[in-house]
């Protein structure tokens, strides 16, 4: 599903959160949205889902395929969420309901959008568990019994169980350690590509961004300051804001590259 955002502005309590956002994602494309904390990344994803706070005033246009999200009736949006649009959240420990088992959690979008029998639902959940690399016994566990990486696998399974055409991944790796981050990014991109869905990958981490996306937008203080192929933006940031973000990321990644070298040296 192609996504087109034109001139999106969100104002909350007279304070502009994002302004004049133009962004498009082609069918089957993985696009990144990167920016520092508080730059308005999550607000854009909320606007795409029509889940902005009620006191927010929105202008502009967000088109998911044929559907215009801004100003659409709640019933129409609810039918869209979870069936055509899947969402992976930042903190898997908090975004899984603590009193629901993994099976109930993953089956939730199916329950909300499809009229399936318990058996059919259980079969789909079991198949999905296999796809995200979790054992079948996980189905009956509660979220607090799982590790962070396993929890995020459940999050991904929940987002993908209805085979949505568009995935919003809102900092899906931020709460995870770096090895788990890489596994989760690889899993997510593989599953999204298999399904042929489009994805908006929101992050503040350039190394994750390079792994997950082909094209990206750089967001700073609610405005898009740079865009282009991810590799190019990383190699040659055009504006001062994106330069700052990239150099900060480079110091961090160089650091970890150095550490990796040291580790490999010591193994030899």
């Amino acid at each position: 599903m192609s996504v087109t955002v034109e001139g999106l502005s969100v104002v909350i309590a007279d304070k502009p959160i994002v302004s004049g956002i133009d962004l498009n994602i082609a069918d089957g494309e993985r696009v990144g949205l990167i920016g520092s904390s508080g730059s308005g990344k999550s607000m854009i994803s909320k606007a795409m889902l029509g889940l902005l706070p009620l006191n927010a005033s929105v202008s502009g246009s967000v088109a998911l395929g044929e559907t215009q999200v801004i100003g659409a009736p709640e019933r129409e949006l609810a039918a869209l969420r979870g069936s055509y649009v899947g969402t992976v959240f930042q903190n898997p420990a908090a975004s899984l309901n603590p009193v629901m088992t993994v099976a109930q959690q993953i089956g939730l979008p199916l329950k909300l959008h499809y009229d399936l029998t318990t058996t059919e639902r259980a079969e789909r959940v079991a198949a999905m568990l296999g796809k995200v690399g979790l054992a079948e016994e996980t189905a009956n566990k509660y979220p607090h019994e799982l590790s962070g990486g396993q929890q995020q696998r459940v999050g991904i399974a929940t987002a993908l169980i209805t085979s949505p055409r568009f995935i919003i991944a809102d900092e899906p790796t931020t709460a995870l350690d770096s090895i788990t981050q890489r596994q989760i990014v690889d899993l997510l991109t593989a599953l999204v590509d298999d399904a042929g869905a489009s994805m908006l990958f929101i992050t503040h981490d350039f190394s994750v961004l390079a792994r997950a996306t082909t094209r990206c937008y750089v967001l700073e203080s609610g405005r898009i300051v740079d865009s282009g192929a991810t590799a190019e933006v990383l190699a040659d940031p055009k504006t001062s804001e994106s330069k700052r973000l990239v150099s900060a990321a480079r110091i961090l990644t160089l650091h970890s590259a150095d550490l990796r070298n040291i580790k490999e040296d010591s193994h030899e």
Partner: protein
Amino acid sequence: MSGNSNNHRGTADRLAFASAALRSMWRRAEGKFALIVLALWLAIALVSLIWTPQSLWATDGYHVWAAPSAAHWLGTDGTGADVFSWLMAGSRTNLLIVLLTVIVSAVWGLLLIAAMVTRNSALANTSVVVIDALISIPTVLIALILAVPLGASVAVIVIACGFGYGLNLARVARPAALLASRSAYVESALANGASGWQVLVSHIIPNIVPVLAVQLSLSAGTAVLAESGLTYLGIGVPSGVPSWGHSLATSVKLINVFPLTVLWPGLMVTVVVVALNVFGDVLRDAIDPVANPALRQTVVAAEKEDER
């Protein structure tokens, strides 16, 4: 997971959950006490529907305020009626009042909670102010006002207590409900297409059950006390209908002369109120999957049995 067992997975899971929770409650001494007292209460109330040792209406002017004897296990009251029989019969009235009060206050309280945690901030703010204002009205006053049109009746107790305790429930549960409603898992449910109502029923309420269990069991205990108080005032259970409050009210006037007759209903009320309060505490600990590892083990055990 074997295919045919999945058809009954929902019910089987719920049964396994309930029996595991009951077993965890039974394992604790105070849990045993609460469960035994409440089970006895239920049993006595049911038996009293078909049998009491003496007829409630068998009065005997020659044996008023009698001490306990083989014929009258707990003695007789001021009309010579059997105290034990009246207490037995009273337990069903009190059970009815407690059940109705808990249902009314739960429904009313949850409606208020729904209003307080809604995304519509105008409604949420108004309902908080309204609840704070209403909560200042004493339950007794509401009962007195209700007694004007309704007269002395069970309805007065149930409506007054249900109203008052529902407000309390809403206020006590509000922070927990607010926390749940602003949580990432509610956001996730919304992003998956759940409506506000579905979020309330399947995501917010299940996560505030611990608070609800404690508060509702406190309400149940207080309803027993309120029944005694309001009946004593003459606006609770009408005269002629057996209840613990009725037994207390008719015997308390002569407490200095025949203290034993007052002791029995007083003891009954005390033991039941303590049991209800303890029940809430133990229930809260037993049904929380994070706090109670037994709940997780049964799911796995049930699974293993299925495979066999």
